[in-house]
């Protein structure tokens, strides 16, 4: 009989779940856990801020497909995790966040560093637990990992009071987990699948619209097979980048507000949309009532709440994307004739290519093109939020799943750098690049210490325009160039990098981009590249908020 403390049971259970990486920050009520970690084989990576720990766990999960784990103390430690938890929730990332809590008898008494963590995180978690009895602890951990990683994944919070951490009981690891009220539908409805296959056979202008669910389900191969068999063009959501190779002739690139003109035109003209693991987000659809007016819509999603939420769907199929696509492929007897449709799309690609001004100026698109060229699409790219992010969507050729790590739903500035740290932990030896803006890099810049101290040689590309660029772009276009609070006076990023023990570089000329990138990628240390870019460069194409998808700015409509 193994009698253990709650803290020991926690760590033992994490090991049983196969956790080998976790991120966190100590504090008063998690001292018993950190004491167990002191000589455990489970190593915790100490970040410099709990938000960094949550984003690192998230980045680790996105890069590896495993559950990301983070740990914080109660009160401010837990509230600092909140943004990271909400971020994982919006992008359906499997995460288990463990928070310390004050002693059970003090809960609700405004104790020192107390906050109602289950209350605060209720609407931003897939599920959460307050552990009141040590006897429940092992099962709760088992359930938390099961819930976080199955169905539509998401974050689960376990709030663990300090007296439960120090209490003792026999450690019994539950052999299996089954929750009667939680049984995700994996098998799609056969009748619906046959109907979908029939519709695909007859389609004249079909489009595959794929999202992050394809990556979660590991269904990239099935998407490729279907697209090639049926000769259907494929457009990716922001979260779906990498699920279908951007270099493929059938790729339309990303759709939506900052999507390619040809992807948006294809959606607007199509007669059949097969949506897979995507959720018709407002950044994708533009004006809802004008979205894809001629199209029937088939929607495959593991989450029934995503279906017919924003857009009326003709054939809903609740199920696992991989399994369902396989079934559709099996039931599809003949490929539709899409020859004319593909010709039209080729026409659009020629007529409305992605463009930027090619001159002597240092433009961000050029830098990203160079990164793509040098890495051949094989690096893990993380980004911050804003222009840096949209340029990275458009100008980097995403060819593999789990190589694109960026905050989609929540749009969290400060995500990219800690996420890169997490990705690098999960994929040692892989080139991990955070493409950042001068604004967002400062939101979690303290994690420089984490990266340097743990020898995680993340490369940071700062596209420095001295502005909060995306907000400035909106102010330019929609607020008469009244640049309210978007002009930044920045620190010297090179000196800052050096102060942390990293390598700093400043690049202001176009011809210096390639040598600098080459040098940085060959450096076995954290490198900060401060690229002084054309300050008022905009992200185009752009569909103004609330407009129809084919009403693009940037000469594309």
């Amino acid at each position: 009989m193994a009698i253990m403390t709650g803290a020991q049971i926690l760590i033992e259970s994490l090991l049983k779940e196969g956790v080998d990486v976790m991120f966190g920050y100590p504090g008063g009520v998690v001292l018993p856990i950190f004491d167990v970690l002191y000589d455990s084989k489970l190593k915790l990576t100490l970040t410099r801020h709990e938000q960094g720990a949550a984003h690192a766990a998230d980045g680790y999960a996105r890069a590896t497909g495993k559950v990301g784990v983070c740990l914080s103390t109660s009160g401010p430690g837990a509230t600092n995790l909140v943004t990271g938890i909400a971020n994982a929730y919006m992008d359906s990332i499997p995460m288990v966040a463990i928070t310390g809590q004050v002693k059970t008898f003090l809960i609700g008494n405004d104790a020192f560093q107390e906050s109602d963590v289950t209350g605060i995180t209720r609407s931003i978690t897939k599920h959460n637990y307050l552990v009141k009895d040590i006897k429940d602890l092992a099962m709760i951990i088992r359930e938390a990992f099961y819930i976080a990683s199955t169905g539509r994944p998401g974050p689960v919070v376990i709030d663990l009071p300090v007296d439960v951490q120090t209490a003792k009981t026999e450690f019994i690891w539950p052999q299996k987990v089954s929750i009667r009220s939680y049984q995700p539908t994996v098998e799609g409805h056969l009748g619906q699948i046959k109907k979908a296959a029939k519709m695909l056979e007859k389609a004249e202008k079909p489009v595959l619209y794929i999202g992050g669910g394809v990556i979660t389900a590991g269904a990239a191969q099935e998407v490729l097979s279907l697209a090639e068999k049926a000769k259907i063009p494929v457009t990716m959501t922001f979260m779906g980048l990498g699920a279908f190779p951007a270099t493929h002739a059938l790729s339309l690139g990303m759709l939506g507000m900052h999507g390619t003109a040809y992807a948006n035109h294809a959606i607007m003209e199509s007669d059949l949309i097969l949506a897979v693991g995507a959720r018709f987000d407002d950044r994708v659809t533009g004006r809802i009532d004008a979205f894809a007016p001629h199209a029937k819509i088939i929607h495959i999603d593991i989450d029934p709440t995503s279906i017919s939420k924003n857009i009326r769907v003709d054939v809903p199929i609740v199920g696992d994307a991989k399994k369902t696509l396989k079934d559709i492929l099996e039931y599809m007897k003949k490929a539709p004739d899409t020859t004319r449709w593909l010709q039209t799309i080729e026409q659009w690609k020629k007529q409305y290519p992605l463009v930027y001004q090619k001159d002597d100026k240092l433009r961000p698109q050029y830098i990203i093109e160079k990164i793509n060229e040098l890495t051949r699409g094989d690096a893990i790219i993380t980004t911050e939020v804003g222009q840096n992010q949209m340029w990275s969507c458009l100008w980097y050729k995403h060819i593999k799943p789990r190589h694109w790590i960026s905050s989609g739903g929540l749009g969290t500035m400060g995500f990219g750098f800690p996420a890169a740290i997490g990705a690098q932990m999960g994929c040692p030896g892989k080139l991990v690049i955070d493409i950042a803006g001068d604004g967002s890099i400062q939101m979690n810049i303290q994690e420089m210490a984490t990266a340097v101290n743990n020898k995680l040689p993340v490369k940071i590309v700062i596209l420095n325009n001295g502005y909060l660029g995306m907000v400035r772009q909106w102010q330019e276009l929609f607020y008469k160039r009244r640049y309210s609070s978007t002009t930044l006076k920045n620190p010297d990023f090179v000196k800052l990098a050096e102060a942390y023990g990293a390598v700093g570089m400043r690049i202001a000329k176009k011809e210096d981009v390639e040598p600098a990138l080459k040098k940085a990628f060959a450096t076995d240390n954290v490198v900060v590249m401060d690229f002084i870019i054309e300050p008022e460069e905009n992200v185009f194409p752009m569909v103004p908020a609330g407009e129809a998808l084919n009403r693009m700015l940037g000469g594309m409509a």
Partner: protein
Amino acid sequence: MKHTLSILVENRFGVLARVAGLFSARGYNIDSLAVSETQDPTVSRMTVVVNAGDEKILEQIKKQLNKLIDVITVTDFTKREYIERELVFLKITVDKKGFPKLRKVLDRAGADLLEKREGYVIAELVADQEHIKDFLGELECYKVQELVRTGRIAIAK
């Protein structure tokens, strides 16, 4: 349109807050709520009556209720055959002289007289919404000191 939702949930702390949260986050007021254990003590039933301003939003709320880990099933009784009842307690001001007339009102409605005290009585009525409404209408000429309602419960036929 008013909807009566019958929600079977795990009988544990926090579940009510999760369920209520889906309504409150959208600014939806719950008209009536009754929660109690079922024949299985590990399962509770919540009967929620809500006025859906927008049917599409209610549809989304129902899907999201189903998605909550602690929710076992969600049934919308609105388009089904079901029986609903609510229990109402009333404390009504009445003097000796007025009592016989009040008694008749109570009897007609099928309400029970539970307490008769100096200056007031306590009555109880178990009925459906229509009857309760009619009954309260008939009491308009009386001073009702307190009105306590359990919230509706419903069962499918």
